[in-house]
């Protein structure tokens, strides 16, 4: 494949996948691996050009941060999304404090809040027990463990 024809979005994505796999380190190895796996003849300058053009380091950091944040167990997808969006809303709040409001940011913020409201309606609150039922369960445990009866 001619070098000029290599810069397709597909090849750039393939290269990014390998770059991410290596944590953005050891560029010679990354290059070797890309060329071996995908039959390309990529050079170091081209790889750096693709990396800068695609903001690979930023992409990698954002993906890792979001993954770490969403990896908490026991949350439904909606709950995870709600949490991620809430965090993003806080980022906007900080952004508006630090920068004069711009229209684009305001529009994005509005749609963010709309999504939050929509998601919050879809999330079922955790089931709470009936107080009478809880009391009965406590009394049952007390009776079984300590012989206490009321």
């Amino acid at each position: 494949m001619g070098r000029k024809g290599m810069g397709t979005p597909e090849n750039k994505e393939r290269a990014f996948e390998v770059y991410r796999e290596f944590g953005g380190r050891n560029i010679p190895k990354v290059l070797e691996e890309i060329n071996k796996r995908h039959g390309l003849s990529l050079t170091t300058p081209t790889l750096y050009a693709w990396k800068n053009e695609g903001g690979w380091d930023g992409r990698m950091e954002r993906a890792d941060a979001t993954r770490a944040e969403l990896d908490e167990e026991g949350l439904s997808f909606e709950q995870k999304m709600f949490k991620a969006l809430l965090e993003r809303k806080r980022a906007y709040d900080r952004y508006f404090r630090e920068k004069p409001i711009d229209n684009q940011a305001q529009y994005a913020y509005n749609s963010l809040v709309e999504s939050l409201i929509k998601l919050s309606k879809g999330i079922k609150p955790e089931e709470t027990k009936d107080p009478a039922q809880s009391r009965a369960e406590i009394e049952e445990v007390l009776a079984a463990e300590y012989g206490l009866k009321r």
Partner: protein
Amino acid sequence: MDPTKEKYKRVRGLILKMLAYEHPRVLDDMVLYALLDDMGYPISQEEFHSHLAYLGDETKGYLEVEEKKARSVEIVFVKITPKGLDLLDRFTPECDPGVNINF
């Protein structure tokens, strides 16, 4: 047709359609991600960013990802370009085989 590839194409088309709906306004990337799930296309963050990179690549140029930085925080917007709108409106002579807008 490989169903996975067809799904990729549809997700890309859907991303453009949602951005066109907001045009000329922008969408936060996380909101766009949540909307995709809402529309019945739940995908991983990695896949989502891969589609954004694909659609925003200079050879495609259907959308723009803009990172805005303040002192301690960064927010990310996504916006459809005129080229992306032309694709959706079928104003371009050829369709894009990597993006399905016919659904």
